[in-house]
């Protein structure tokens, strides 16, 4: 696969993908999913539903036992994980698995360096990435001198700097305070505005409803609900959500109780109430 053009994200397709871990746990069970370039997708589900397993197939860390993973129609199987990293950057849930460099600067440089970026381009990327996560000015800080939530933001910055057409975030909001959650939401929207495909694995329903154009609900290795937040959190889908051990966010519940249709976010509920009052 050739080096990606920064502005054209590939279409992603999972075609009947099955994956079982060595211990015998079947994490993906004949999963089908198609993601168009530039979409923002939140993959939600309880722990063990296969969400993280799914995204690790996108950058080649895991390979399907059966079925195929396709980027722009081409099977990714023959491509090394290190090369897929140029297409799909994945920020892990636990930042301590990634952080190793003496300081923030080296940490954020690691990814783009591996992709061959040098010099002024590298500095610019590092600066922009740290700015996006609110860590500008911390270039010389040692990662392990920072608290857990800031380490998490640092890990995200180190992937942002790779400027991959597909950006994948694994549970980016867990352990974050209000400011951290807002930062993560902002950078999702900024990345989407640049035309990147943004995929987040999350069990934060509000985050999913507010920042993503599409919500994919997983349960036992399969997709059970798939659509816009309004579609997924509509009342008629609640039984399926509950079967997946998830609850719709409060605005959706309030909107349903008031008979206002599907209002998955605060803004939607406010708009619906205003419309009703007119």
């Amino acid at each position: 696969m050739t080096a990606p053009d920064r502005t054209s994200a590939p279409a992603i397709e999972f075609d009947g993908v099955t994956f079982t871990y060595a211990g015998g746990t079947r994490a993906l069970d004949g999963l089908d999913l198609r993601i168009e370039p530039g979409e923002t997708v939140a993959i939600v589900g309880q722990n063990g539903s296969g969400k993280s397993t799914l995204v690790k197939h996108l950058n080649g860390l895991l390979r399907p036992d059966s079925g195929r993973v396709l980027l722009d129609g081409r099977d990714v199987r023959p491509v090394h994980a290190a090369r897929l990293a140029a297409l799909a950057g994945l920020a892990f849930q636990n930042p301590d698995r990634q952080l190793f460099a003496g300081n923030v600067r080296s940490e954020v440089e690691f990814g783009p360096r591996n992709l061959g970026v040098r010099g002024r381009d590298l500095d610019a990327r590092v600066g922009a990435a740290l700015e996006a996560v609110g860590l500008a000015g911390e270039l010389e800080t040692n990662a392990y001198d920072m608290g857990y939530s800031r380490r998490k933001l640092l890990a995200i910055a180190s992937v942002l700097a790779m400027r991959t057409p597909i950006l994948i975030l694994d549970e980016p909001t867990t352990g974050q305070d209000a400011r951290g959650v807002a930062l993560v939401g902002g950078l999702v929207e900024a990345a989407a505005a640049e035309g990147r495909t943004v995929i987040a694995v999350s069990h934060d329903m509000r985050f999913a409803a507010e920042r993503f154009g599409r919500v994919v609900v997983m349960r036992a290795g399969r997709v059970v609900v798939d659509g816009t937040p309004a579609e997924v959190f509509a009342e008629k889908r609640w039984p399926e959500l509950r079967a997946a051990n998830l609850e719709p966010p409060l605005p959706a519940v309030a909107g349903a109780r008031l008979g206002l249709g599907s209002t998955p976010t605060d803004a939607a509920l406010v708009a619906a109430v205003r419309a009703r009052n007119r």
Partner: protein
Amino acid sequence: MPRTRRPALPPVDRGLPDYVTRRTSGFYRELNPATKLALAALEVVVVFAVPGWLGPLVVLAIVAGVAAATRTGRELAVIGLAASPLVISIMVVNLFVLPGAADPIFHAGPIAPTWSGLWFGLLTSTRLLTFSSAVALAYLTTPVDDLLADMSRRGLGRRGVFVVGASVQMVPRTIERVGEIMDAQRARGMDTEGRIWRRARAVVPLAAPVVFGALTEVEERTMALEARAFTAPGRQTLLRAPADRASERALRWLALIALVAVLVARVSGRLG
């Protein structure tokens, strides 16, 4: 929330469950861990002190028998496989560079493997595999907490017990952790399948998170242990401990005497 009186403990109608006092089955498995270790020590000494093929072959026969009886053959095979790079390098070194060997098998230009080299290489490899199997058998057939409980019963302090237990656990956990770290760094473009010098550069990005992760965990784990009264004085209560019989004690003494006898015989030249 209303203030509640602290309720008394309920009467003990449930005792220690079976799965805690579980008995393992099989003669060898049920042996006290100290006995297994004593036997393994004797076997190791025999492998190395008795010259020629006799020592290794005798122990190999014993190990094979016990492995079959305890059905640990497959796990032993895996360990043998793990030792295969070492075996291969032993064979190569001995085949081609055994000093003083003068009986070549064939010539291929300047390279000439020798029969003596082959013989000696096979002997050394067999010794290696046999002694590691003897030790591995003791390890594979003893659940860690049996070993710890036994050590505790013999008076090893709780810190010692904990260090041993945690260290044993640390190996699989570290392996798992290294796997996760490797995944995370590959996701940032680190090349693990390419040229060797590139992979050498991967050492720090792989090793550092292991170390840092372990260190940051240490403080939290220390506090968690303190929160469980780990540093309380006195002897730790044992919920269970493997039994030790007089016959096993006798067996251990015999093994120790035999071990010393073999060593003495070897050192004094009696074994040649």
